[in-house]
């Protein structure tokens, strides 16, 4: 018996994890009446695994989400308890922010923000079935017997679709430890014709802080000078904590080796594919037998609670083995496990069935974001959620979808990878995936995407004005360093900067090109510069120091764009194009690339096929 809900929505978001929250907030903020439906109202924006945000490429994603008006950056800034910038000794393109969150505070703040959003209704409920009419999604039905109607649906199901938890050889259905799984939805998707696959991920045990001897562990403090994630955060207010470093040893490995017959992974119970970059400890011990120790960062899950997260030690071994191997480690001799680690298998929908807007090709109005697309990571999920929410809203408003290029952001790299490359294991972002890495930096995420966010309607006045001000400062400061010169008669400056013999005047710009001179030094000798913000000066410095490389990357981008700009019309009939192989034809029909460039990145599509399509387009006067 299903009851139709009296209110009709424009956008319905299913799941309130990192993807769902961004999707729902974006849609509501863009003016669409939005419903956010989730299995548990107490686990909003839950950090199911590592209690941290950011890191290489992931920090980049958070900065981009923030620049477009998403929530993640603000949320971690408000609830972070240890901030640490990575790669500070490497170049600006590969420096990244990372922060530990107070897990409960992170979740609570996100829930609060969602509750405050005017056009957004937050409700508890589990979706059993999608309602589709004539190839269009029109709503969904919950297990509780309510029918919700809307013009677009965003599915962000995380690990909940047919989630199966493994602890040792025991397994049971669940979306996360202690939470229900969604059993109906993936069947509904299968009936709609979607190809469903199965992946696996895992998490380590949580340890009781009280039972750990921290005096035996190395302490790891955060940064003194904190650089927040969000462009609009000025200062991190929250009290900060330390992390610790623990290590496994030969004894630990021996315990693990002797228990492999009780591992669901090695006894063949688990069929889903796990992430290559995040192997379980049993995997590491087996695959790297020569390593006699593995490092683990011990991270507090919150300011107050006692739970500690031991990174790098995810497992699906039985609880008694987990306890035994932990207790073999220094500092953990008397450790108590509060929650055992486990592996979880879940259904995902092969993302090559999506358009670059994250809308499914099979069902109009249906969008997928996050782990349902075979990705892993909070930041990857949030990024897709934001884009799916934006495009669901734009669809309701009759606007074209927003698609970010590989040259414009990691967000673009990720979506393009998802829709063109087959998923072999959970997808995670790395900086090495970005061809134009030198251009896609955390420090210029605002310059790359704030204007887009403003156009879409997600960037409010405060952020916009702050952004414009920074841009003005960058221009003005560049002008100054171009025009102002140091001459041999400026003795004091020459001495301060240790310039040696100056034959004639040198512009500050030229000085800045020297590796040994930085903008802070110029600021000291040129008081006019100290009027500008640190962020503005940083941009000037990077632009000058990396000018040659930035120019070369821009040239690469130019070459890349040429094919990117040849659009493949939606109504192109690949059956009518002769001389391409059946295999390629099928791929093109299935994937429907938006541009010739994207088509060329699909595995198996040959340069010859691309040439044939190009010529066909010309004949049809498309291009």
């Amino acid at each position, binding site marked *: 018996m299903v009851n139709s809900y009296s209110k009709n929505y424009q956008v319905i978001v299913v799941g309130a994890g990192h993807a769902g929250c961004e999707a729902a907030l974006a849609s509501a903020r863009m003016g669409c009446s939005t419903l956010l439906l989730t299995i548990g109202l107490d686990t909003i924006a839950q950090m199911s695994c590592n209690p941290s945000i950011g890191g290489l*490429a992931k920090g980049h994603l958070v900065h981009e989400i923030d620049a477009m008006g998403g929530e993640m950056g603000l949320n971690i800034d408000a609830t972070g308890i240890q901030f640490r910038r990575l790669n500070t000794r*490497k170049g600006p393109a590969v420096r990244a922010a990372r922060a530990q969150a107070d897990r409960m505070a992170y979740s609570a703040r996100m829930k609060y923000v969602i509750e405050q959003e005017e056009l957004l209704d937050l409700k508890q409920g589990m979706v059993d079935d999608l309602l589709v009419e004539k190839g269009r999604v029109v709503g969904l039905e919950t297990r509780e017997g309510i029918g919700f109607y809307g013009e677009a649906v965003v599915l962000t199901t995380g690990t909940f679709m047919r989630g199966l938890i493994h602890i040792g050889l025991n397994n049971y259905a669940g979306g996360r430890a202690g939470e229900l799984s969604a059993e109906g939805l993936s069947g509904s998707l299968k009936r709609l014709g979607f190809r469903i696959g199965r992946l696996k991920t895992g998490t380590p045990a949580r340890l009781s802080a009280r039972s750990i001897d921290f005096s035996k562990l190395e302490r790891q403090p955060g940064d003194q000078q904190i650089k927040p994630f969000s462009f609009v955060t000025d200062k991190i207010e929250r009290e900060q904590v330390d992390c610790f470093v623990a290590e496994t040893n030969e004894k630990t490995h021996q315990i693990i080796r002797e228990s492999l017959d009780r591992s669901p992974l090695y006894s063949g119970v688990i069929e889903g594919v796990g992430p*290559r970059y995040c192997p379980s400890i049993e995997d590491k011990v087996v695959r790297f037998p020569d390593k006699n120790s593995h490092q683990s960062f011990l991270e507090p899950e919150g300011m107050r609670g006692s739970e500690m997260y031991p*990174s790098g030690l995810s497992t699906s071994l039985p609880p008694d083995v987990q306890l035994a191997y932990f207790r073999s480690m220094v500092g953990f001799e008397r450790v108590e496990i509060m929650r055992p680690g486990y592996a979880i298998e879940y259904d995902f929908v092969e993302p090559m069935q999506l358009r670059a807007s994250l809308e499914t090709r099979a069902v109009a109005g249906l969008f997928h974001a996050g782990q349902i697309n075979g990705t892993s990571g909070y930041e990857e999920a949030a990024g897709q959620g934001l884009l799916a929410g934006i495009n669901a809203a734009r669809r309701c408003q009759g606007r074209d979808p927003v698609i970010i290029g590989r040259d414009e952001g990691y967000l673009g790299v990720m979506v393009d990878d998802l829709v063109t490359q087959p998923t072999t294991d959970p997808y995670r972002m790395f900086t*090495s995936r970005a061809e134009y890495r030198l251009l896609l930096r955390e420090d210029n995420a605002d310059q790359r995407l704030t204007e887009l966010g403003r156009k879409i309607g997600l960037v409010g006045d405060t952020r916009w004005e702050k952004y414009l001000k920074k841009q003005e400062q960058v221009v003005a400061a560049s002008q100054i360093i171009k025009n102002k010169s140091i001459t041999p008669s400026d003795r004091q400056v020459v001495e301060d900067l240790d310039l040696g013999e100056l034959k004639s005047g040198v512009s500050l710009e030229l000085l800045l090109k020297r590796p040994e001179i930085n903008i802070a030094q110029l600021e000291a000798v040129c008081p006019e510069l100290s009027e500008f913000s640190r962020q503005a000066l940083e941009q000037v410095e990077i632009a000058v120091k990396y000018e040659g490389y930035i120019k070369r990357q821009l040239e690469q981008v130019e070459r890349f764009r040429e094919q990117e700009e040849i659009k493949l019309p939606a109504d192109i009939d690949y059956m009518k194009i002769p001389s391409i192989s059946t295999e390629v034809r099928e791929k093109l029909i299935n994937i429907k690339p938006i541009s010739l460039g994207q088509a060329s990145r699909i595995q198996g599509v040959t340069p010859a096929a691309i*040439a044939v399509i190009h*010529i066909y387009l*010309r004949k049809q006067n498309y291009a």
Partner: protein
Amino acid sequence: MNTSDTIIAPATAPGVGGIAIVRISGADALSALLSYFRPSAASATLESHRLYYGALRDRSGCLVDEVMAVYMAAPHTYTRDDVVEIQCHGSQQVITAILSLYQEHGLRLAEPGEFTYRAFISGRLDLSQAEAVSRLVHAKTDSARKLSLEQVGGALSREIYSLAESLKKSLVLIEAWIDFPEEDLPDEDLISIATTIENAKSKTLTITSSYTCGRVLTEGASILLLGQPNVGKSSLLNALLGEERAIVTEVPGTTRDFLEEGFVIDGIPLRLVDTAGLCKSGDVVESEGVRRAEEKIPSADLLLWVVDSTKKLDDLDLYVYNRCVGVPTFLILTKTDLVAEFGDLSFCNFPIYQISSKTGVGLDGLRRGISSFFVGDQISAPEAVMLTERRHYEVLLFCLDCLRRASELLVDGSTLELLAFEIREALDCLGKISGETSTESLLDDIFSGFCIGK
């Protein structure tokens, strides 16, 4: 592939033909032609599809060659873009000069098959032919792996492959250091990276320097005759050709400008260039010829310093000798049918050949010397890598640039991502020859090589 810029390439096969055609295609074709070409009939504009005779002069106004040129306006051309064809003398020097003139002007050297590719892209070729053409296009992009590499017996392929492998190993490490700063990876050992880069640099250098030899076999080589007036240069040219091509008189200064003739020794296509005798002369015309003769020295593959054996070596001979130092040179003593007077030659390290153009004595020995100079070592060492394609050569030069910049970056470890950028570019270059995109499986290598996962 970019299809919007203007490209240039020889349209005729390299060899010893009398006439060669250089083809230009793209929007700038006509303006490029008119930048250097003046038709002899002073018509204001060039009509499409009509052949004009005229002079091609470089920036400084020096004559490059007398040519026939035709401009064909789009779309009734092979590529459907504006096309220009320049018919010039078949000598490699002339072709090279024209190509470099236009490359400096901003035109890009066409990839093999690129004119056909453009013809195809522009829709000039019918769709019914697409199957066949697509195979051709495919062969082009995969060409390195499939075709040219097999042509050179796989040696180049193996060399490129091992070069790419070693660079890729370094790249895997660098990418791991960048993306996983918190994992316990091998230490950032820039010294081992530096060693790899240095090795790659010297290997690339070896391959690129084999280009001259490889090119000689396919494109031919040029031999320049130098000597003071009246020593018998023109006679030697005639003797080697077996034909009276150059005018020979007993008056010094007979040859006023250079004269170029093609001939073949042991299958090597050669261009023999006779010049005006080198001397400081008051005669303006001849000194112009002398200047041009001296100008040709750097582009010659081999110099023949011709000395009259019946005369004592004098200042003029030494003047010529000094021009030859540092360039591969043979010393030719002529007129050995007469009484020798030349004196002490022990200061000179060049191989010496004594010949008589009159009797023919010594000519065979000279021929053998020339042949083994160009290909001798290579033929006896079949495994040595020889670069024959200009495209490969240019790609490797670019690769070398990247490697050079990489080793400069290595001085300071704060630039790992720039180092990665250079190595990726270098690998892309190698990929253009081997047909493999080498960064594809980078992540696989990182995860299988290092224990990553916090």
